[in-house]
């Protein structure tokens, strides 16, 4: 069943409020909900929350044979799922339109933007490469699951450490795969000179997705990071994935209210500023977490 659309008073109130540049949660038109990250005990496990929207991303790696046509490249696969758990609006079974959009956008933002250096995932050309599997699970949908999922995904990539390997001839030895760092672990009981800390992934750049919602009234300016009600009542979304280097990775505007070219360029500019802040916040938070896991190897 399609979810019942918002009632007439809700609709009217939201449009009126937006006309006065007021948002129901007290944000400014161009404010993001501050994302918070909770890292799990494993590296590459992150829960990202923006307001009541919550997404879990989990990354793991395993060794596989590379694809015959790409013998020097690792493999990245992304699974995403919106179950009825996120919101009763989603039906189990058949992938919903939202799910198709989310899967494709994650694929474009995280994989096809070449954020991760795939060649660095190669262990032994044509024989062994790392396969990175990212699973994105939407826990709660309170609007804008796309941005939240992309954020969770990229943070998971940055948080992850892959085990070091040693290649002797055709033999591949994983050096201490069990040395997944636990928080507040200060000391390793067993260690030998050959043990090395797991290494982070080679990441070219860090794309972040920012979504704008447009409204039917031409004079209402678009809002960033729409809440569920805003998203439902919007007349079109524009998603822009950018990195802190002001490069656009994905731009997706399909339909919705027609927008003047200048407006599109203005949004890109706004996105570039928001992305810079996000980048700083993510780096700081990752550093904080890493410090907390500091290991002392004697």
């Amino acid at each position, binding site marked *: 069943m399609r979810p019942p659309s918002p009632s007439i008073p809700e609709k009217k109130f939201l449009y009126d409020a937006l006309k006065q540049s007021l948002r129901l949660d007290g944000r400014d038109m161009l404010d993001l909900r501050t994302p918070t990250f909770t890292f799990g005990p494993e590296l590459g496990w992150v829960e990202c929350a923006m307001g009541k929207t919550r997404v879990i991303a989990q990354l793991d790696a395993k060794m596989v044979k590379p694809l015959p046509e790409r013998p020097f490249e690792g493999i990245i696969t992304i699974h995403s799922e919106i179950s009825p758990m996120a919101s009763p609006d989603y039906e189990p079974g058949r992938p919903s339109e939202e799910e198709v959009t989310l899967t494709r956008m994650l694929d474009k933002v995280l994989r096809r933007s070449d954020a991760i250096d795939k060649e660095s995932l190669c262990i032994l050309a044509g024989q062994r490469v790392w396969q990175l599997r990212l699973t994105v699970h939407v826990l709660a949908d309170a609007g804008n699951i796309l941005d939240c999922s992309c954020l969770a995904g990229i943070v998971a990539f940055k948080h992850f450490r892959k085990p070091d390997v040693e290649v002797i001839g055709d033999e591949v030895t994983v050096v201490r795969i069990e040395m997944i760092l636990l928080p507040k672990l200060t000391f390793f009981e067993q260690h030998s000179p050959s043990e090395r800390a797991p290494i982070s992934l080679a990441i070219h750049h860090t794309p972040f997705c920012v979504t704008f919602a447009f409204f039917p009234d031409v004079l209402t300016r678009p809002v960033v990071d729409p809440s569920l009600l805003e998203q439902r009542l919007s007349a079109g979304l524009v998603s822009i994935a950018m990195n802190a280097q002001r490069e656009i990775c994905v*731009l997706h505007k399909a*339909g919705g209210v027609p927008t003047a070219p200048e407006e599109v360029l203005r949004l890109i500019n706004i996105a570039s500023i928001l992305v810079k802040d996000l980048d700083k916040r993510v780096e700081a938070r990752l550093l904080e977490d890493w410090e907390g896991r500091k290991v002392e190897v004697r």
Partner: protein
Amino acid sequence: MSSRVELINAGLLRSDGRRPYELRTISINFGAQGTADGSVTYSHGLTQVRVSVQGPHEAKPGTRRETFHDRATLNVEVQLAPFGVGERRRRGRGDKRLLELAATIKSTFEPVVQTHLYPRSTIDIFIHVLQLDGGLLPACINASTLALATAGIPLFDFVCAISGGVHGTQPLLDLTTVEENDVPSVVVGVMPRTGRATLVQMETRLHMDRFEDVFRVACDAGKVLWSEMRDALRERTGDLVDKLEAGPGMVAVKETEET
């Protein structure tokens, strides 16, 4: 990925001899297809798509739940002929790329078609891709615009879409497959009356300043396409009107009116 083909040479000519802003030839054929209400075969360079529009009509019993009480629903289906692409491969109905393409086309036309005039009805857009050489989405969109117009479905405006890319710092328009594989590409759909964009899509990394260049050029190119599409549509409609007004039927109608 890395190409050995020189995409653009010192004389600013592209691999197929075009200038950076030059578009490929467009041909539009309104020949009737079956019982469709509107149909068009649209080719843009070597890309060829065929679009049939059915409707507005009563929703099929199975999909009636998905209709709206205050507007028509659009249903877009895209099929890629296995022989139309470089590598012969059958794509099922569940192919994610085609589903996304269909979803994009659907959402592009939702605000353009005056769906509020047809509550509870459905408008079907069936797209067959016969040949593919870059610019698939723009071709589908332009052809759908024309097919919707010939089906007599009210539209707020045309949607004229074009692809663009950047090679180094040189913006290019209307990319072929070879170019699409190598340079960042942008698809822009404009509504010519207001010059506003309904569709902007980009999937590869590009600096925002470069993007601005190609985006502006593409918006202008959309208007040029519009004149081409409008001409074709006018010619076809004029043709039908002439037949209607001046053909043997009209003479007979006049005769009956006189008697």
